[in-house]
C-alpha cells in the first residue's frame, strides 16, 4: 500500500494537536514554547506534503518562510522568557498571574 498524502496530513495533524496539548499541559515556559515550535513544524510538514502532492512550488517556499518566522520567534521568545525569569527563579508559568481580573 503506497504512502499517500493523507498519511502525511494526518501525521501533521497529530503533531499539531500534540503541540497544542503540550502548550496546555506543561507548566514550564520553555517547554510551552517548544510545543509551539512543534506546531509550526507540523504546519511545515503539511505545506511540503501538499506541495509535493500537487506538484507546486508554493508549498516549499511557504515552508521556507515559516522556518524563518520560527527562527525569529525563537530569538524574541527566548529573550522574553529570559527577561521574565530574571524576576524569579523557577520558569513556572502559573506564578505569572499578577495581571488579572
Amino acid at each position, binding site marked *: 500500500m*503506497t504512502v499517500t498524502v493523507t498519511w502525511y496530513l494526518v501525521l501533521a495533524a497529530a503533531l499539531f494537536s500534540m503541540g497544542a496539548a503540550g502548550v496546555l499541559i506543561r507548566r514550564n515556559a520553555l517547554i510551552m514554547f517548544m510545543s509551539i515550535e512543534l506546531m509550526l513544524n507540523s504546519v511545515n510538514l503539511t505545506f511540503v506534503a501538499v506541495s509535493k502532492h500537487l506538484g507546486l512550488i508554493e508549498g516549499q517556499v511557504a515552508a*521556507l518562510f515559516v*522556518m*524563518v518566522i520560527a*527562527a*525569529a520567534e*525563537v*530569538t524574541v521568545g*527566548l*529573550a522574553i522568557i*529570559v527577561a521574565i525569569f530574571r524576576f524569579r*527563579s523557577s520558569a513556572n508559568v502559573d506564578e505569572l498571574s499578577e495581571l488579572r481580573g
Partner: protein
Amino acid sequence: MELSDYLPIALMTLLGIGFAVASILVSKLLAPSNPTPEKLAPYECGIVPLQDPVERFPVKFYLVAMLFVIFDVEIIFLFVWAVSYKEFGWAGLGAVVVFMLMLIETLAYVWKRGALEWNVARRQRYRRIVAEGHLEEAA
C-alpha cells in the same frame, strides 16, 4: 516499494549510532572500576547537594546564541539564491544585496551597542584600575 533510495540514509544512521555505542563500551570494558563511597562523595569539602545544580549560565552565552540563529537563518536564503543566481540575474542580485545590507546594518547596531563584548565587567575593572593607576602615578 523501492527502498533503494533510502539505503544511504540508513547506513549513515547506523554508522553514527555504532560510533557512540562503541566508544562507551570500550571505556567501560577497559577502564578499572572499583567504586568506593568516598570516591562517589562530592570532592573533599563539598556539601551534599540537595538537588542537581541549576546551571546558571551568564546571559552572554544566550546573546551569542541568538545572533548565531539569526545569521544562520540568513544563510538559508543565500542558499536559495546561490542555487539559481543566474536566472535571477541582476534583479536577484539587487534583492539579495538589499537583504544582506539590512542584516549587516543591524549587526553594526548590535556591535555598537556592545552585545559582542565578552567579559565586559572584567575589562571595565581593568580600565578603572589603569585610570586610577594613572591618577596615582600622575599624583
